[in-house]
């Protein structure tokens, strides 16, 4: 709590002769207060020494709570309060005190409302719950505000028949403006409380119990985005389970790591835009910067590589971070799944890789080190083979291949890891070698299968006729 806030609390306690906010009416008197010990329910002004009853007697003689407002004008317009100050202070002091007094008076005003609404089961004529738990509200971020700060249309008792809806925008103008145009703009009657929680229990976002505390954000968003039916209705991927199983979700939910990416880290909070919107941080061209907010080193490598430069030049077919790592699952494409991942674009290269020993080893489990795409081509800073810095540049091949193949030499690296024996134009020699082998298999097998089949038929014929093959000569 800020020093000013502490001061306000101390001031409030010293101002009030009793801790009125904690008072609870006896059940029988909740709606018909006829208080005998009214002396307890007074506020004492320390400067003047005068006391002020918190109840007034109406024309019928029944006691009812005095209506007090936190607004300076209302205070000035209330003779009972104004008299408490005017007695013996100079004008400047009075002004200063008036400003500070607005806070304890706000508490005082809450007390008034809570005297009725403190019953958490209280319902209005339409059956809506209008009860407020005073304890919860007083620990909320809005505890210093009077009820009418939000419920501005309710200034007197009896209340208006149709009080205006609470508008968070009257204070939170920036957040409300950010919400306009976002995917959540029309997401419900109360877009604020859907995420921030019950209106009277909203906590500061650095409070670990807050619904928008970094560690709680996934669960808050998951209330809707972990709902399969809701995802179907809005044609969204049901991303919450994927996120929670990811390395980001694990870090947040299991390790409690504040710096790990939660939903808002990538999508923003109030101005969430669709990934198809070019202004969105999750739009394809923005993703490297979004991920790069944390993964700065990888981003630097990525933007220098072919994928990064292609994307920067406007080629939307070039992969950004999420095309290889996926957005919510955050795969680790260093393992076996990296080859189909790269192959989804580089189909011809995947096909030729599939024919090699590298691929066969890879398919049979990762018990041994084996060359997959990234082992030769690099990961984030992939460069064309013509680039002297590329690991697959002819000048670097001995070193690159030599990482696995001890004794690799200039002759050895002439091996073509993407040769295509199925293509007569690319690798004619290998094509004809393979063709010869296929014809050899086909020829030999055809001849001998025919040989065996005819033999079988003849044997069966002779057995049927002569009784025994062995008798035939």
């Amino acid at each position, binding site marked *: 709590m800020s020093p000013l806030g502490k001061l306000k609390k101390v001031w409030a306690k010293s101002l009030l002769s009793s801790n009125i906010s904690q008072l609870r009416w006896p059940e029988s008197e909740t709606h018909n207060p006829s208080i005998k010990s009214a002396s307890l329910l007074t506020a004492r002004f320390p400067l003047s020494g005068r006391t002020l009853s918190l109840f007034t007697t109406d024309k019928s003689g029944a006691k009812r709570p005095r209506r007090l407002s936190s607004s300076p004008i209302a205070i000035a317009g209330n003779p009972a309060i104004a008299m408490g100050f005017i007695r013996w202070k100079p004008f400047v002091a009075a002004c200063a005190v008036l400003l500070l007094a607005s806070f304890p008076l706000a508490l005082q005003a809450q007390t008034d409302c809570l005297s009725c609404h403190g019953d958490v089961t209280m319902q209005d004529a339409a059956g809506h719950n209008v009860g407020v738990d005073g304890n919860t509200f007083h620990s909320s971020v809005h505890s210093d505000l009077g009820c009418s700060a939000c419920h501005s249309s309710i200034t007197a008792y009896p209340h208006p028949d149709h009080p205006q809806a609470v508008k968070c925008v009257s204070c939170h103008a920036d957040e409300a403006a950010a919400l306009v145009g976002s995917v959540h703009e029309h997401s419900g009657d109360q877009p604020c409380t859907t995420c921030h929680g019950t209106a009277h229990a909203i906590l500061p976002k650095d409070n670990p119990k807050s619904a928008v505390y970094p560690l709680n954000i996934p669960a808050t968003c998951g209330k809707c985005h972990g709902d399969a039916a809701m995802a179907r209705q809005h044609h969204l991927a049901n991303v919450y389970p994927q996120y929670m199983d990811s390395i980001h979700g694990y870090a947040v939910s299991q390790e409690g790591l504040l710096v790990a990416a939660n939903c808002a880290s990538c999508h923003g909070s109030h101005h969430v835009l669709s990934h198809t919107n070019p202004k969105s941080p999750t739009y394809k061209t923005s993703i490297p910067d979004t991920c790069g907010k944390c993964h700065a080193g990888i981003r630097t490598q990525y933007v220098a590589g072919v994928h990064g430069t292609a994307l920067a030049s406007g080629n939307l077919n070039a992969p950004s971070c999420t095309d290889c790592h996926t957005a919510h699952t955050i795969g680790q494409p260093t393992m076996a799944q990296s080859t189909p991942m790269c192959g989804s674009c580089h189909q011809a290269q995947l096909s030729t890789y599939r024919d090699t020993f590298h691929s066969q080893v890879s398919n049979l489990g990762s018990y041994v080190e084996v060359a997959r795409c990234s082992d030769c081509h690099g990961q984030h800073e992939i460069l064309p083979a013509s680039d002297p810095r590329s690991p697959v540049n002819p000048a670097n091949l001995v070193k690159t291949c030599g990482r696995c193949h001890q004794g690799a030499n200039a002759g050895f690296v002439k091996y073509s890891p993407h040769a295509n024996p199925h293509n007569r134009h690319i690798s004619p020699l290998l094509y004809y070698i*393979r063709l010869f082998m296929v014809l*050899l*298999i086909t020829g030999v097998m055809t001849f001998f299968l025919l040989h065996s089949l005819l033999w079988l038929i003849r*044997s069966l014929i002779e057995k049927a006729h002569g009784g025994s093959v*062995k008798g035939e000569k």
Partner: protein
Amino acid sequence: MPDQTIPVGESKLPDQVAPASRNAEELHPVRYFIRFTLLQRYMHAIMFTTFLGLAATGLTIRFSTNAWAQHFAFAIGGFGTILFLHKFCAVILSLEFLYHLQNIAVRILVRKEKGLLWGPDSMVPNLKDLKDIIGNFRWFFGRGPKPKLERYAYWEKFDYWSVFWGMIIIGLSGYVMWFGPFFGKFLPGWALNAVQIVHGEEALLAATFIFSIHFINAHLRPDNFPMDTTIFTGTQTEEEFKERHPEEYERLMAQGRLEQQVTTKPPTWLMNFSKVTGFTAVLIGVLLLVLSVSAYFRE
């Protein structure tokens, strides 16, 4: 593998003086003849054992995208084990092949066995094999008598030479892959690519040929069904001899050498062992054949 140093077998006939016995076999004893020497039988045993090991591991690598290959690799300890077993079997088979070459060389150059390279007992194809092929096809279609075969039928010679050829091709290409950086110093780049194609396809041919044609010709055809144990016991009965190699039988009889080939009946344990071993090998081979052929046509 031909071997002319056929040891003189037990020529003493079983005792026929058994008046109390009503056993037909004892009254008209079945005579057994030596066909393969102990060395040849051991050579075949080592070869088919390592061949099964090479095929099981090699076909797993060749068809590595198939679930059965991945499960098999996982079950025996992953790719490291697969490749170790493949190389282990390869080295043993290579040594056996080198020993066979040495054996042949000694017999040709030192012992001057002329019959090894030509003649009725040779593995080298000759004009009679061509006549036998044509004659056999005529017989298949009912256009002539069944040809009378010599010691080695033409399909047996094909078995031998295809294995001989396969050993050289598959073996050499395998060692080039194994010691790539070393061979890279002499071979052109394309050769390093070619060895993988040649190794894989030639091995596929060898496996499919052995597991189908060789099994059919040697064991599964009606005459031999369900199992010809000659290569395991080294012996064949007189009836089998006359039926399978009539030309050789008549030749030996004419030369008066037939009695030299007579031996005792193989012991029961060896007969049973031969059947169990043979069936096991056939079952493993047929399983690998089915898996490989189905995988090949799904590629």
